[in-house]
């Protein structure tokens, strides 16, 4: 199979999913790029997670109240779901529609919110925003529960425009006014939850969305130039018609799936890295009646995505770092209990899933990395990738042995890099690894002693690769 097909499939699986084992990448490359893209875009054509089996092995996941169990269940799905893009898209929306356990104080509500992202994340954007705006956790997190006809609370109205749909501005202009924020907030009065919070005196029971017509401001409102007796769903419909919303979505998709862009507050003044790519996705949005899937299809099938210049142009977020390594090495495959420790790793690396720091979400790109999180990233990655007892790592070592009876240090390093990515290194880094490998000379695996040595050196080389600065990217 052509090396470039493997490299491209590996790129696709890193971005449209959480990576894959080498065996899986080769199988998918043989299947063909376009066919794999269609599978990813149409999760319903892929095998579903067997919910009964999942809960049988992990009863603690079922309607779990505790946040840890909800995080665990999500990480399990990221590792094991055959519907990889669905989970990747759920994480995408979780990083935009940020609400956190620190305020909501219910793991179950957080789990239900992520379910929305999983189910509606690739559909019509209007539907997703409506689901979000009737999600009890979000209504509480952004204080819509405190917004009343007689006394509006602007929080949800503002964030819906600023962070969830239009964005502050584009092409140096502003996308909405303070009056629009007020009109938006007024339209969402009466969108509330039951039972209320705090949960005195008998503890909490699950929330439901409740529309209270008596608390809804039914006066005329002018929103983005349109006047009428708008309710929340009208606001969503109007917002989804705005060019700014298409731009906002296209930039977010590019930033998450293609290459790191500047942080979001800079978008009003900073043009996109690839204007043509953004325009192509905007066009898909209009032509498909606001379909996220249509935008993703353009993204994954375009040259701007396949371009070698955007490979490894994103710093892996902590969840990607952890899950992709577990997938690559075959660790934690299938239905079994006991994922707690791994599911906490992203938090140690600065990404506390289901608990983003603020409604603006995590700062991404290079800001994932500081001296504390880098140590966590490197140690986790090198421990997993260098563990030659794991099924997936053994398979990589066997493949290395299959390259020949004798390997020069250069062939050995090349082979290791190819199998773990292919990872592309800067020449300086490459030189360091080769000179390290050269110290112990050529590798063979004819005798048992040579074999033991070969396995040890492979594990060490994998650890070194996992420790490189280049490995921080995907």
């Amino acid at each position, binding site marked *: 199979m052509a090396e470039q097909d493997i490299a491209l499939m590996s790129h696709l699986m890193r971005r449209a999913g959480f990576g894959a084992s080498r065996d899986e990448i080769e199988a998918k490359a043989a299947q063909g790029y376009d066919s794999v893209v269609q599978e990813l875009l149409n999760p319903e054509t892929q095998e579903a997670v067997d919910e009964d089996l999942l809960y049988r092995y992990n009863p603690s996941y079922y309607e779990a109240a505790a946040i840890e169990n909800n995080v665990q269940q999500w990480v399990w799905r990221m590792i094991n779901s055959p519907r990889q893009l669905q989970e990747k898209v759920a994480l995408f929306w979780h990083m935009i529609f940020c609400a956190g356990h620190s305020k909501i104080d219910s793991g179950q509500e957080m789990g239900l919110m992520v379910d929305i992202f999983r189910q509606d994340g690739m559909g019509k954007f209007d539907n997703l925003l409506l689901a979000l705006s009737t999600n009890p956790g979000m209504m509480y997190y952004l204080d819509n529960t405190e917004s009343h006809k007689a006394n509006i609370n602007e929080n949800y109205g503002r964030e819906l425009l600023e962070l969830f749909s239009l964005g502050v501005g584009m092409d140096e202009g502003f996308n909405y006014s303070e009056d629009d924020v007020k009109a938006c907030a007024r339209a969402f009065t009466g969108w509330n939850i039951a039972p209320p919070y705090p949960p005195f005196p008998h503890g909490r029971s699950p929330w439901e969305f409740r529309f209270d017509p008596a608390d809804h401001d039914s006066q005329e409102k002018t929103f983005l130039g349109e006047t009428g007796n708008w309710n929340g769903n009208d606001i969503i419909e109007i917002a989804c018609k705005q060019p700014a919303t298409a731009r906002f979505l296209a930039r977010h998709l590019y930033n998450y799936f293609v290459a790191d862009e500047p942080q979001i507050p800079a978008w009003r003044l900073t043009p996109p890295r690839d204007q043509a790519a953004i325009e192509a996705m905007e066009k898909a949005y209009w032509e498909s009646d606001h379909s996220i899937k249509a935008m993703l299809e353009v993204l994954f099938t375009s040259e701007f995505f396949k371009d070698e210049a955007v490979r490894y142009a994103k710093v892996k977020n902590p969840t990607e770092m952890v899950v992709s390594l577990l997938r690559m090495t075959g660790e934690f495959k299938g239905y079994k209990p006991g994922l707690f420790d791994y599911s906490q790793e992203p938090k140690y690396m600065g990404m506390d899933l289901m608990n983003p720091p603020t409604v603006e979400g995590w700062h991404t790109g290079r800001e994932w990395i500081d001296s504390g999180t880098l140590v966590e990233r490197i140690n986790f990655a090198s421990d997993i990738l260098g563990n030659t007892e794991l099924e997936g790592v053994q398979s990589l070592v066997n493949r290395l042995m299959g390259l020949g009876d004798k390997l020069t240090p250069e062939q050995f390093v090349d082979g290791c890099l190819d199998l773990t990515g292919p990872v592309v290194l800067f020449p*300086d*880094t490459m030189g360091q690894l080769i000179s390290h490998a050269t110290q112990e000379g050529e590798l063979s695996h004819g005798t048992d002693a040579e074999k033991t040595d070969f396995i040890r050196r492979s594990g060490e080389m994998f650890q070194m690769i996992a420790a490189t600065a280049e490995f921080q990217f995907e």
Partner: protein
Amino acid sequence: MVQTKKDPVLAVLSLSGGNDGLNCVIPRNNGHYRDARPTIAVPEDQIIPLTDELGLHPTMGPLKKYWDEGKLAVFVGIGYPTPSYSHFRSMDIWHTCEPEAIGTEGWLGRATKQLDPNSENVLTAVNFGRGLPRALVMDGVPVASVGNLETYGLLTGIEGENQRNDALEVFGRMYAPAIGTGAVMDYIHQTGTDALKGADILSTAPDAYTSSVEYSSTAIGQYMKNIAQTHLAGFGTRVLYTTSPYNGFDSHANQLQANSGLLSDVSNTVDNFMTDLREHDASDEVTLMFFSEFGRRVKDNGSGTDHGAAGVAFVVGEHVKGGIYGQYPSLEPSQLEEGGNLKFNLDFRSVYSTILEEWFSLDANPIVNGNFERTKFFA
């Protein structure tokens, strides 16, 4: 301003889960206390008296010595306006000093930035535990976060000392400044170099340490030992932080037994820590604070207590002026917060401000987001 022989150091032990202030610093002859807590009230004759009204939980004996020496400040009725009953949110408020908005910078991250504006020492602030508490978060402030000091470092999974040393040498060279690799890569190289430097220095701490003090084998005991080791190693670390195991103090059920163990562990460990520092003539420059995100409900629930509002906090150190600070909140049912909780009267930011200003000689107001009355608990 407090005068110390060496640069002042702050150690913080965060008690995660909501420590029950009422069973920690007990209003020992208060009838409401006994009425509200039929299951878990501590019998009056077992309480360790501090004042005519207040006393410590029976398992907190090791702290009495510091009270008698006049070096234990006890804060009662401590909290903030409009209490949050969520562990995470309330702890965030203590971390960021932002009860209204959601803050991203921690008070000790900001303090560290002022103590070492150019990040000249990668170990000015060190956290013990996995993942950085928000108290220490601040852009551009490197903070080492140490899961286990005995094994802390990079590439700790490589077996064999020689192999690991070789690997670390390669790592050092791989992360050396590289030309033409781009701004993000440059930044990661610099960060990797800082991390390696910090790990190299920190890893020498346990070997250089000897002591007659035996800390408990619990996480609290071991991390406080690590704090002592790091301080005694003389790396110039000014802020040392650790958190007790996640939500351990969240005593909804079986409180009598669980809390006795926890309070005993905390008290013994604080005593061990102070004794250890004194043995090494290194206690003069250290102040230790321990606190929790909130107290607990006045009424017990038949087995434990639910999330509450105002709680207690402690500061111990050679320069501390012992005593009770703040008013013990009224337990009269009509005087409670909504939901049956104690009302706060001492803002935690007052305590922070005093530490920042009198102990660290820093401008406190920008760090705690406001001007709070100072609580004069330094001698």
